[in-house]
């Protein structure tokens, strides 16, 4: 149930029955993925800043850049939750769209306030995620397929609802405070005379909250530990008294909920609630966590890594954009970076393993 679909043939390519790979212990600092990422992000930001001083323009570049990083970090966290149990959520974008549709309805028809609508959206996201998790847990069907099919289903359902309820495939009612939320930065929050930086959007606070909550869950609570144990070995987890089926549902519900939050952040920053929300989420949702060291196979996550991985891709995107590289062909570089990053990561692991063996 937890194995990624694509691994059957390649997994068997490795020697079976070898004694377990010698991992753990002290890894050299250069093999720490997160430090590498941080250095890379700083280097690249400096490089772009030197080439194009406009890169450090607070209002025009840094502010939207941080807003992007914040949103995609939340998207990454949504994926991270299911990766932690060795699953995938291909419907992460569509879950965002679905939740925002519900939020839109709550604004449009029920005249909810901004935050009440957000809450309704989060609940809707958690519910649709839980549904995916429930199907997976009950049937034992691969998460890849279930979320793919769910994606299909929502892709059909959402436009139907929008055409039924709206004129221009977007909810027009904007609750009070939505526009402010888009433009306000920390400069608008003052404690006495000390105000925040105008470069940091208030929306980023949502990402900070999400990171703190997710980080806290995984490092400090029973739930997080049980999720990671389930991701490492479902069998052993079940035989250690962990309710694995329930954990699968929880992980997917968390994923849906975070997807909804990301959808809300996108809706606020673009100023409209429409059916196409979340279309761009799938690739970044994997990029952030994977670059940051979260394992596809489950059992290990990194919240900081997700932030750094997201920051790296966003900085590159923005920097190349300023350098005049066409927006869409940025994809070429992003894809290559993903491949190179993962290949070098493998080389690094192999090297540090060898070093360890030599030290024995």
């Amino acid at each position, binding site marked *: 149930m937890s194995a990624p*679909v694509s*691994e*059957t043939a390649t997994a*068997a390519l490795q020697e079976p029955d070898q004694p377990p790979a010698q991992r753990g212990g002290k890894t050299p600092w250069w093999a720490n993925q997160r430090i590498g990422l941080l250095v890379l992000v700083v280097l690249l930001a400096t490089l772009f800043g030197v080439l194009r001083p406009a890169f450090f323009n607070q209002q025009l570049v840094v502010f939207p850049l941080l807003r992007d990083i914040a949103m995609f970090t939340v998207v990454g966290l949504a994926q991270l939750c299911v990766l932690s149990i060795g699953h995938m959520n291909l419907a992460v974008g569509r879950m965002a769209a679905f939740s925002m549709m519900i939020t839109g309805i709550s604004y449009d028809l029920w005249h909810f306030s901004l935050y009440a609508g957000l809450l309704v959206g989060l609940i809707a996201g958690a519910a649709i995620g839980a549904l995916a998790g429930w199907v997976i847990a009950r049937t034992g069907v691969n998460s890849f397929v279930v979320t793919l099919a769910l994606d299909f289903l929502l892709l059909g*359902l959402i436009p*139907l609802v929008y*055409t039924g309820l709206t004129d221009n495939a977007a909810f027009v009612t904007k609750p009070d405070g939505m526009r402010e939320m888009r433009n306000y930065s920390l400069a608008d929050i003052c404690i006495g005379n000390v105000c925040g930086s105008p470069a940091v959007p208030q929306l980023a606070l949502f990402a900070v909250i999400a990171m703190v909550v997710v980080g806290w869950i995984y490092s400090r609570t029973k739930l997080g530990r049980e999720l990671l144990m389930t991701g490492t070995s479902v069998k052993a987890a079940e035989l250690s008294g962990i309710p694995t089926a329930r954990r699968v549902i929880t992980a997917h519900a968390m994923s849906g909920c975070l997807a909804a939050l990301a959808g809300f952040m996108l809706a606020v920053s673009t100023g409209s609630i429409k059916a196409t929300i979340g279309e761009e989420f799938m690739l970044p949702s994997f990029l952030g966590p994977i670059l940051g060291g979260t394992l596809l196979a489950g059992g290990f996550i990194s919240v900081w890594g997700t932030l750094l991985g997201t920051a790296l891709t966003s900085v590159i995107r923005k920097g190349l954009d300023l350098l005049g590289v066409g927006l869409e062909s940025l994809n070429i570089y992003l*894809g290559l970076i*993903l491949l190179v990053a993962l290949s070098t990561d493998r080389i690094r692991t192999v090297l540090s393993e060898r070093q360890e063996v030599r030290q024995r």
Partner: protein
Amino acid sequence: MRRFVKTTEMTLLVICVVFFVFLVIASGGDLVGANSLKVLLQFLAVPILIGLAQMVVLAVGQLNLAVGAVGGFAAVAMGVMMADHGVPVPLALLIGFVLASLAGLANGLLVVLTRINGFIVTLATMTVLLGVQYRLVGTRTVDAYPQGLKSFGSYAVFGVLPLIFLVALLVAGLLSVMLRRTVPGRQLLASGGNPIAARLSGISNDRSVVLAHTLSGAILGVAAILTVASSPGVNKSIGGDWLLPSFAAPIIGGALLTGGSAVVLGTVLAAFIVRFVDTARAEFSLEPSWVNFVVGTVVLGSVVLGQVRTRRQSRRTVVKAPDAAVAGRVS
């Protein structure tokens, strides 16, 4: 196993026939008119091929997220070569086909050499190729290629059977023969069905994985050719909506995601069913979104059913734990 696949494909065939009859009746017989039939089949060619392109990688236990990107990139490359650089049609099509095959080969080699999960590899190559596709064509729609190609795309034998549909069927036939009757094909399926056993029998699983990805690329190359020939022009959105149907067809067709199943006929029939859903949608003038909704539901349903079926089957025969084996006999 073969008998079980046969029943899956039999079921699909029955559904196809019933669905078709229903559509004919619902349309008051219009559907059997030469032109309606032609249109029905015309739009089947590419879905069949992208389903097969996914099926062949699923057969080896891998997946390919880059189906749309490979196809779109190849299609755009062909269009640009012909329209902007005056490359003769056959040469342009050949180059496009080779490019698609090479993209598949690259996927396979990356998976095998880096040992990175195939999901991530094809996600990365998808991103790269989408970028290349955009860089090649930008926001234009390229349609200034020779009329001859377009008439090939719209030509129909007896006015009913579109040439491109026949090409798709030919590819399906070749793939079927390849997977069932050739040594590399059998080895590919062996690698997917039981990689350890395959390895012990001297089969290189690496080679099977590379072969499957390359075949996938080649099939997408043909799909790209048919797309260029049959659509009014090519642009950056070609291939953008291929990913979901590419999984839908083999999964409905009965492919096991764990590998080892060759369901060419099932994939083709599933493509028919999806097409019928679309036709029905048009018949009753419903929103296009209904198609995705229905197909999503059907995929989910067929996977759940398939799972129940394999579980029951594994309970019956495949016994790994020694104790369970004896138990099965005692009870």
